[in-house]
């Protein structure tokens, strides 16, 4: 649970519908996210959770519906715009830059804030070096936070899965986001790793006040750390409320138990 | 008008030649997703083999008939091409089986260079002839409608007929035989095909063998028309736009693409050339391909590629 005081609505999704050709990924989904809260999106596989995150981060444009982030309409937007507005995300399948080291991967998260042009970069001494060192300090703090110091120069492809997940999180954190979207951050982890990751998520929310939307399959984690939950099934919303409310919702129970529709 | 028709026909005929080479590309790409840059080198290698064998066999075995020489040479060259194609598949492509397209492209580039040197080492590097026994006199047709008639080369007609025959044989093979069906399954979805028990490796072996055979047919036709020389290797570079225009995965696309490129090239050279300056033929095909790429990347007949995140 978030220890901060939950604020006003920061993200408002209204009647979002998304289809790929004939396949309806999302149908008329509406929910909101409040500032500083931890909002979970749950649902069986194929329910459309990742598509929802893709819509919020601007990767997909919904055919219908509106996305209102911090009072501005962002429905027809692209990932770059959402990034500049402080939306960061991690990926279900990692999507790390395999050819680069841990440190470089996290440094890419600072790209939007790095202003030196190519000529200054070519010369290096002076403005470029100063900027690089400045952002390096910031990323080192993230590396400390995630406890991956020994691996900072290792190419990410060589790290075990759990550590790669941390790097993914680190890269998103490097963007200093106000809204952090986590796509199954605990997938494939054992109990200890999940505890570590949960602690990181809570710390991020606690220390920086980052609003977090996370997709997660582990019910224990969801019930423990989230403030409110949205339940999707077959692209439709079937539940929305606090973890307790959702847990006792009959539709949700049916969806998870596989009762025929 | 007569001249225009001649240009059109000439362009179409050249296009048929391109299509023959492009067919080999499409076959391999359909079945394995590999773009075989070395197809041009294979065509050259095959043509060299056939030309030289047709030259050597009569002396070696002591007979005179041109037809027999050509037949034997063709059969032998076909066997050689099958072996060469196998070699490429097994030594180069199988070790690289899960790499990205660009890596495979560069590997086939390497194969091109290798085959180039190897072919010339084996068969020699002069210009050779493939004599199919066709008279070199052109035909004059439609003399009643157009003054002087329209000039047609017998080589070109033979080429067109052979191309039609090849496409027909291939179509029959793909549609009517079990192996052909398996090939189409593999072309659609490797994993699904594997899961129903189609042996991928064997299929690729067959595909490459067929591609090698196609290379021989193309080489024979080209060699008969132009003589067997080094510039044939440049064919790969010309056939690439054909496949872009027609679509990488489409046999009819290879035909249509080839005809379009051949036609377009000739028309551009004859009618635009005097205005812009000659040599248009060298890059017209690529310009057209580029335009198609920007407007309709999958080509006229290809399948749409959708990227899922």
């Amino acid at each position, binding site marked *: 649970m978030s220890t901060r005081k939950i604020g006003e609505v920061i993200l408002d999704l209204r009647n979002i519908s998304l289809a790929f050709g004939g396949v309806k990924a999302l149908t008329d989904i509406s929910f909101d996210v409040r500032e500083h809260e931890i909002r979970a999106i749950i649902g069986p596989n194929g329910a459309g959770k990742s598509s929802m995150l893709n819509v919020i981060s601007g990767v997909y444009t919904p055919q219908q519906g509106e996305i209102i982030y911090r009072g501005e309409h962002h429905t027809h937007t692209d990932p770059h715009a959402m990034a500049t507005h402080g939306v960061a995300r991690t990926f279900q399948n990692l999507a790390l*830059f395999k050819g680069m080291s841990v440190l470089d991967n996290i440094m*890419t998260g600072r*790209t939007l804030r790095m202003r030196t042009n190519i000529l200054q*970069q070519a010369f290096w001494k002076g403005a470029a070096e100063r900027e690089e060192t400045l952002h390096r300090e910031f990323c080192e703090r993230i590396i400390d936070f995630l406890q991956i110091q020994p691996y900072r120069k290792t190419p990410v492809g060589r790290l075990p899965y759990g550590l790669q997940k941390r790097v993914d999180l680190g890269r998103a954190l490097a963007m200093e986001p106000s809204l952090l979207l986590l796509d199954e951050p605990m997938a494939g982890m054992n109990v200890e790793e999940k505890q570590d990751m949960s602690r990181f998520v809570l710390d991020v929310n606690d220390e920086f006040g980052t609003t977090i939307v996370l997709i997660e399959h582990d019910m224990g984690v969801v019930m423990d750390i989230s403030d409110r939950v949205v339940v999707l099934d077959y692209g439709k919303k079937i539940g929305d409320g606090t973890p307790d409310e959702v847990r006792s919702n009959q539709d949700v129970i049916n969806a998870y138990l596989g009762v025929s529709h | 008008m007569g001249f225009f028709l001649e240009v059109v026909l000439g362009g179409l005929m050249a296009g048929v030649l391109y299509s023959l080479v492009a067919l080999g590309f499409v076959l391999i790409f359909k079945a394995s997703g590999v773009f075989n840059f070395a197809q041009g080198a294979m065509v050259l290698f095959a043509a060299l083999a056939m030309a030289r064998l047709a030259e050597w066999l009569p002396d070696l075995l002591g007979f005179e008939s041109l037809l027999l020489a050509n037949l034997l040479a063709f059969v032998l060259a076909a066997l050689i091409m099958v072996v060469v194609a196998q070699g490429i598949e097994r030594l180069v492509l199988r070790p690289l089986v899960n790499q990205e397209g660009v890596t495979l492209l560069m590997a086939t580039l390497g194969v091109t260079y290798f085959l180039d040197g190897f072919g010339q080492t084996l068969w020699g590097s002069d210009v050779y002839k493939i004599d199919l026994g066709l008279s070199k006199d052109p035909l004059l047709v439609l003399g009643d409608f157009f003054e002087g008639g329209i000039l047609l080369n017998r080589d070109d007609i033979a080429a067109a007929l052979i191309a039609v025959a090849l496409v027909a044989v291939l179509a029959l093979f793909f549609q009517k035989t079990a192996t052909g069906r398996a090939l189409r399954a593999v072309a659609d979805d490797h994993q699904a095909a594997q899961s129903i028990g189609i042996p991928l490796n064997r299929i690729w072996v067959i595909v490459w063998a067929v591609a090698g055979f196609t290379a021989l047919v193309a080489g024979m036709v080209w060699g008969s028309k132009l003589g067997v020389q080094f510039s044939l290797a440049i064919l790969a570079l010309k056939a690439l736009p054909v496949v872009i225009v027609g679509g990488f995965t489409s046999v009819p696309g290879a035909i249509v693409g080839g005809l379009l490129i051949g036609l377009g090239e000739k028309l551009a050279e004859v009618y635009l050339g005097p205005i812009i300056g000659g040599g248009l033929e*060298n890059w017209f095909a690529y310009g057209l391909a580029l335009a198609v790429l*920007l407007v309709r990347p999958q080509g006229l007949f290809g399948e749409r590629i959708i990227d899922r995140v």
Partner: protein
Amino acid sequence: MLYRENGQFKTRYSDDQQIFPILQDRWLVMALIAFAFIGVPMLASEYMFRAILIPFVILSLAALGLNLLVGYCGQISLGSGAFMAVGAYIAYNAYTRVPGMPVIGAFLIGGAAALLVGIVFGIPSLRIRGLYLAVATLAAQFFCDWVFARIAWFTNYSASGSVSVPTLTVAGISIDTPQSKYLFCLAIATVMALAAKNIVRGHVGRSWMAIRDMDVAATVIGIRPVTAKLSAFAVSSFVIGVAGAMWAFVHLGSWEPLAFDVNRSLNLLFMIIIGGMGSIMGSFFGAAFIVVLPILLNQVPAWLGVPISTAMASHLEFMIFGALIVFFLIVEPHGLARLWSIGKEKLRLWPFPH
């Protein structure tokens, strides 16, 4: 034992971010550079300069340029010869048509022209990739071949289609001996290689590599594919253009469009495949390899007492090239540069096994 980092503690991030953070590496590179600038001119013969060293230096630079685009940014290009041609011809026109134009100025203008052309021909990369992009770059190559062969303005209306430049002078010093030509090229190449390395270790280089590795994730972080790809084309073409001008002015002296045809493009591509894509050092390795191999092939059989004709040597060259490309792609896709760093890793442990 010799190659340990013991005792080399960095107290500032800027120390850690140096090009060669390990002291031994720095010494080695300094020594190499000193040897290249001082030792080589004293030791090498005229033949070595003309046949090996000068081509090596210039082609390394060209390969480096191509590596920025293909190796670091992941955009395949089969048209690098065309960019060399643009650099060469525009530099030529700047040098001969503008009175008092210094050589370096002409080179820079040639590079700038190549940069612009590079951006234009990079535009397809925004919509297509891989194989299709290779075709687009080939289109650029053939188109440029045609432009420089047909549009007489570029060749100053020369009747034969080929052009030549008079002896170069830089700051009053005449560049006419093999040594001076070599040093001139080496100086330019060193400066540009340093600049390239700086770009590659900063945020621009990281953006390129991000686009190469996972372009969707890159956009989500805020990297604009348009900016990254076009900047890669721009910088890469600039470097290749300057290399092209150097190749024409210093190495060839007089040339025709065929000097920059698709074979040159493929040649550069082979250099970076063998040398190592995504590695500045790899470009030098690859260039050295490709420059030296034909010479070896011509000389070694004679040394061994087995004479082969030049035609045969050329066939052998093709075969070996082809086989090596395939070999490297299968066995070590990161080329000689990776073998070099593996070697260094082993050296850190030597003489211990692990």
